[in-house]
């Protein structure tokens, strides 16, 4: 099986190991990974600011780059949600667009829904706090959200739970937003930071030892807050844990 690896721009520039871990994990599972180097950014910062004319060329660029791959896989729920839900107004009717929407997956959902992998083997003897990144949670439904009444599930937890020694944090607020929100983190700096500090306090209270998420952007924000305050809860993208990285590889 061949996939086009879609690496968000900020992971490419700031968190290269998250990309490497994603590639290694997929290869280990027998997937043929290809990283098309023309890719840059999906356009989400522009789209979320409402700047549609500035988003449009990036949507076209993305389609051109990834059109011919049987699957597109990305270690970010937010960027996948961008392609799946917000490219339509730019690319509707373009050859290959409908197929692109159907074959673009966030890493965890690709592993669970397409590859149908069993929970991964390995060892990770820590109490892990899963941060439910909102676009993955309520956009892609990677897990059940606390507002909706129904059976509870989590694709992240499913993938992690067979790791030897792993336990999970039971939070007071299981899926409140961390406050990153892309340009929101700048526009509403005070609220954004307060949200992040509250999220961290919840994890600290219940004894989280490693904080993970399917989106590195949430962790970038939370880690930035911690580093300023001199607290150091290791943050790892879920791909890093699944690829067998040690906690020393944490950011």
């Amino acid at each position, binding site marked *: 099986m061949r996939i086009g690896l879609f690496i968000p*721009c900020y992971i*490419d*520039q*700031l*968190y*290269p190991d998250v*990309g*490497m871990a994603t*590639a290694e994990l997929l290869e280990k599972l027998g997937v043929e990974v290809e*990283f098309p*180097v*023309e890719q*840059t*950014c999906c*356009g989400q*910062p*522009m*789209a*979320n*600011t*409402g*700047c*549609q004319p*500035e988003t449009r*060329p*990036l949507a076209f660029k993305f389609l051109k780059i990834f059109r011919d791959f049987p699957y597109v896989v990305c270690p970010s729920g937010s960027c996948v949600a961008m392609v799946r839900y*917000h490219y339509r107004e730019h690319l509707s009717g373009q050859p290959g667009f409908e197929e692109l929407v159907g074959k673009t997956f966030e890493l965890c959902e690709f592993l669970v829904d397409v590859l149908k992998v069993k929970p991964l083997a390995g060892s990770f003897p820590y109490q892990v706090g899963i941060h439910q990144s*909102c*676009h993955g949670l*309520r*956009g892609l439904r990677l897990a059940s*959200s606390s*507002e*909706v*009444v129904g059976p509870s599930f989590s694709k992240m937890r499913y993938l992690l739970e067979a790791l030897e020694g792993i336990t999970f944090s039971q939070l007071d607020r299981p*899926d*409140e*937003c961390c*406050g990153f*929100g*892309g*340009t*929101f983190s*700048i*526009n*509403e*700096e*005070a*609220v954004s*930071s*307060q*949200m*992040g500090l*509250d999220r961290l306090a919840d994890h600290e209270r219940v004894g989280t030892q490693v904080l993970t998420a399917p989106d590195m952007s949430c962790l*970038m924000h939370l*880690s*930035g*807050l911690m*580093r300023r305050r001199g607290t150091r809860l290791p943050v790892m993208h879920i791909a890093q844990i699944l690829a067998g990285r040690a906690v020393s590889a944490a*950011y």
Partner: protein
Amino acid sequence: MAHTTVEHAADAAAFIQNQERTRWHDQALWFVRAKRDKAARAVPEWEQLRALAGQIKRHTLAHLADYLLQFEEQALRHGAQVHWARNADEHNQIVLEILQRHLVRKVVKSKSMLTEECHLNPYLERHGIEVVDTDLGERIMQLRQEPPSHIVLPAIHIKKEEVGQTFHTHLGTQADATDPNYLAEAARGHLREKFMAAAAGITGVNFAVAETGGVVVCTNEGNADIGVALPPLHIASVGIEKLIPRWADLAIFTRLLARNATGQPVTAYTSHFHGPIPGGELHLVLVDNGRTTLRAHDVFRESLCCIRCGACLNTCPVYRRSGGHSYHATIPGPIGSVLNAAHDPRTYYSLPYACSLCGSCADVCPVKIPLDQQLLYLRGTIAGAKHLPLAKRLLMKLTSFVMQRTWLYTFAGRLARWWLPKLPRFLVYNRLNAWGKQREIPAFPKKSFRELYQNRQRHGQ
């Protein structure tokens, strides 16, 4: 005169300055959200109810004219008098005219966001009529001369100590009183006098049933009932989006409303009004005030499905940490940001950006309004109309320009990673860097992912 815009971020930052109050406001509302979760989970068919409620509202909006006429016909049969108001001014004039005709000088009013929207109180006061809000929270706000900060819990932003001070000033209660029972008892005595003196009662309406011509008012304090049972004159202000088709549909909404609003199985009082009390008059004022404009819009139409439960406010992580007044609108929070920015994008341009797009509001909404998507859509309207500050627009143009050119993106990334770590701290962390006010920027890696990956391919690892 320069156009005054609402700057949510600045007011939110001011609210957060008081850390203790912010924490307490956040926790008080989260407590309500948690109660709501518990109440919703006790109803196994909850999601089915949400889906049905959303479908009924959408259906009603699609056939609104028919249902309004049916409602009018049925209401007239019960002896009610029906008035149509195109906007807030007409609504206020109609209400004043009815009151003046009956020589009314004192009115009691139960909770109604529509009369807040129309600014009815100051209008009537200007014409020499005393209006007393009889909902406890609203009365506290009225005495403090503040607008409500929440559509269901109007005084959620103030503490019992502040209520004590307000009552001490206005009702003559003991100084420094904080006991909720004592204060509530004082309010009860005070309001009783007002109820006895009033010559008319004004209420809002939660649901208007087209099939029966009846209106339904949901309260917890019984203040609407006593307010319209004592005086012979009852005026009910009805937003035209409050219609539901059939009597049988009502139960779906009453099961959702209180559970979603406060976690109660049902409001303490669900009062049905079909015509006037013997010897009295019932006036129903149907108000448009921009609703047909929203209804004509393909995206914003859905926002008219709102039943004003307030759950999107309670769950919104931004609302909880910025307070209702930071929105400068009758209806704050996610639904308020949609309604106000859709109506006046220039003034309220910042509200759709007071949102991290977490989507919790849409998941909690009892009629499934995609609130986060509406806010995102509004950003497009606002940016398209150039209501965004120039610096933000230019930054997006620049980012897009770079991202369209892979070589430039790669080069800019490499330059930033090489250069930024070498800069003295004050050049990186200053007042221009909003990110860095409370956060460090990430440590810059020497190599990007693409460099590492290409190296690995080249060396065949």
